[in-house]
């Protein structure tokens, strides 16, 4: 097929569950491309010389290669190419912000819409999950052991990459179920738990061991892992941790949640099942969520599914400054979430019995650009107004969890309490590597995975060097 013909093909639209239907349940919104659409979409790739898309991928997937395999109908080869670079394609195909990574650099996108790389990745991963038993080649066992702290995206990726290199890997998870933010944070309608479970099982089939209910820094220390437990190296990926509250009056009223708590109750603890679940969550007619990131979108869309009317999102900047994925914002609006931009909560108001009854908000204007290059929101005096609600959820970021870092002398931290890691992912303690949100502060699944992959290489080199020394 000639390039001009390829460029005439329209970008595939992702089939979705209709908004009015999906706002009532937790099943997945995006249904995945059917084979004919996927095949057609794969033909849009021009296999251009510079393949800049690969540079935009934090885990360096051979994007033109796997898309060409889809075009040729060889899905097994496509899957093998994906798995060679990314042990969790079913997850990244669903939650990556492709529009600011691979797809942003796609040549086809310079003139029209970029190739739907994310949709194709998901298509291949889902096909592989249903049709292939084992897609990963393992190197011969090295006889060396590595501990991974945390089973979120960074930890799982690092574990998978090390297993491929022949290491004996044990992942320690603090919660009772592996997956980290993929199971406690990201809701079912965006990333079904069954997908996470299956990706975890793939790793276990590769020989990765996962031990739940172990908090490194409490149950065992890093020193224990290196000495008593005899691990050759450790990768720390225990996540961002503590939720930030805005420190406004009324935050201890009943009905105020951090997004972490709200989402954990609903996702990990299944509180969406209502009285059928042991763990409760407060619902309320009106729900207000503050924040502009993916977590805020997840919280407000969850609230909508639990019956909130109105479900209101307030954000102090304007919509174009929102860090959330474009698709999440679009989906939230379709589902009937009310957006109040340039608005900031200043107090939570309660009734006599201590329940939330409203959130007092203030309108913001945009001033001069701040350090982030975005125009700084400035309060407009006298613009206060109350939004009646029974539940108020704060999704304004997290700060580093001190549990592990405080229990680890000699581990260098930055001024925010995040672990400092070098270009190989190694920390100030030899043999201890770190990545994901504990290094970056709050970031994305794919950046965490990129860190996990980089650290796996770093650990591989480190263990080779210590062996030959």
């Amino acid at each position: 097929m000639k390039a001009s013909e390829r460029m005439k093909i329209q970008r595939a639209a992702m089939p979705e569950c209709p908004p009015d239907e999906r706002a009532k349940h937790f099943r997945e919104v995006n249904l995945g491309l059917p084979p004919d659409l996927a095949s057609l979409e794969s033909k849009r790739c021009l296999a251009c010389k510079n393949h800049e898309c690969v540079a935009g991928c934090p885990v360096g997937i051979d994007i033109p290669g796997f898309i060409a395999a889809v075009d040729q109908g060889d899905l097994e080869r496509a899957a093998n190419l994906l798995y060679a670079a990314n042990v969790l394609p079913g997850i990244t195909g669903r939650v990556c912000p492709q529009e600011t990574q691979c797809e942003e650099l796609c040549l086809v996108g310079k003139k029209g819409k970029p190739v739907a790389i994310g949709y194709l990745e998901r298509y291949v991963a889902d096909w592989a999950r249903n049709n292939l038993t084992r897609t990963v080649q393992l190197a011969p066992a090295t006889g060396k052991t590595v501990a991974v702290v945390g089973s979120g995206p960074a930890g799982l990726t690092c574990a998978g990459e090390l297993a491929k290199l022949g290491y004996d890997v044990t992942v320690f998870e603090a919660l009772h179920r592996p997956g980290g933010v993929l199971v406690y944070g990201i809701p079912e309608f965006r990333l079904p738990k069954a997908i996470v479970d299956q990706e975890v099982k793939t790793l276990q089939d590769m020989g990765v061991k996962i031990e739940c209910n172990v908090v490194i820094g409490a149950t065992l220390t890093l020193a224990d892992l290196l000495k008593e437990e005899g691990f050759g190296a450790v990768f720390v990926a225990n996540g961002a941790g503590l939720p930030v509250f805005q420190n406004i009056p009324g935050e201890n009223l009943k009905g105020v949640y951090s997004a972490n708590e709200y989402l954990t109750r609903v996702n990990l603890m299944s509180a969406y099942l209502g009285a059928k679940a042991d763990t409760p969550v407060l619902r309320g007619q009106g729900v207000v969520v503050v924040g502009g990131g993916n977590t805020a979108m997840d919280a407000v869309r969850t609230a909508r599914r639990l019956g909130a009317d109105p479900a209101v999102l307030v954000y102090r900047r304007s919509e174009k400054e929102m860090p959330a994925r474009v698709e999440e914002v679009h989906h939230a609006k379709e589902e009937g979430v009310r957006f109040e931009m340039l608005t900031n909560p200043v107090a939570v108001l309660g009734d006599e019995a201590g329940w939330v009854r409203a959130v007092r908000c203030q309108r913001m204007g945009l001033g001069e650009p701040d350090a982030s290059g975005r125009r700084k929101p400035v309060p407009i005096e006298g613009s206060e107004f109350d939004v009646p609600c029974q539940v108020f959820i704060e999704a304004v970021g997290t700060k580093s969890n001190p549990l592990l870092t405080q229990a680890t002398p000699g581990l260098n931290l930055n001024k925010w309490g995040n672990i400092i890691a070098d270009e190989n992912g190694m920390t100030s303690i030899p043999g201890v590597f770190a990545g994901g949100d504990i290094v970056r502060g709050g970031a994305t699944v794919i950046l965490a995975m990129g860190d996990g992959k980089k650290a796996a290489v770093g650990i591989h080199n480190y263990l080779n060097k210590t062996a030959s020394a």
Partner: protein
Amino acid sequence: MFRILKSEWLAPKVRRFEVEAPRVASRHRPGHFVIVRAYSGGERIPLTIADSDSKRGSITLVVQVIGATTERMCLLKADDALSDVVGPLGKATEIENFGHVVLVGGGVGTAVIYPQASALKAKGNRVTAVMGGRSKPYVILEEELKKLCDAVYPCTDDGSYGYNGFVTGKLGELIADPALPVNAVITAGPVPMMKAIANVTREKKILTIASLNPVMVDGTGMCGGCRVTVGGKNLFACVDGPEFNAHEVDFASLTDRLTAYREHERAVWDKLKDDNDHQCKLQAAMAEDRAQ
């Protein structure tokens, strides 16, 4: 899964478990707690570690039936298992040589002060224990505490045993005794009791530490559901506590926040009343309790 080595009634609707958890046992210090998910699909609940034996690789938990989760947990017997046990969590009690320390436990709170008694004694303190209960059968761990403490005062609300009245009354007597000045008080139990204890010691400015029991989910700082106001600041009980200076704790807010899920808790417990298998086991367990 965490095997239960021993399971017995300690008081009406209060059960003591010895649970196999070697890693937790080897790191446990007084004041630590664990998060337990008793069964698959269950809630995650915080329970203070009442004792540990690093040789046996076990920890002791004392649980009172206060809802569906604890009622189901209290039907578990030796050789059954808890789905999940994670810890030790929280900051350990700061064990110093205070001089004379009075430990005040109310109901199952007495299980919290028990490991503290031993550690405080080892530091050279004079240790007095005051344990409250509704009536005689509800006073727990008296024999165990007698072995560790210099003086032990069981108290009952109905006067059926020991001191006739609330633990606050007994504490008031102790701090009024010029012969044995009290240098520190550590308390654990129902929130109204801890609040009252703080009020007893406030005027004399006696250092008073309370072990708080807010609602928790993960227990590692991730959710922030356990935030409590201490000295005007919001702190997380799971990582900053669970022990705080009682004179600075906003007990009114803590009390109120503990009621947030009452409706749901009642609904889940009511549903359990229709579960025949559960009710059958419950009847048998209660009969066993009466026989003891």
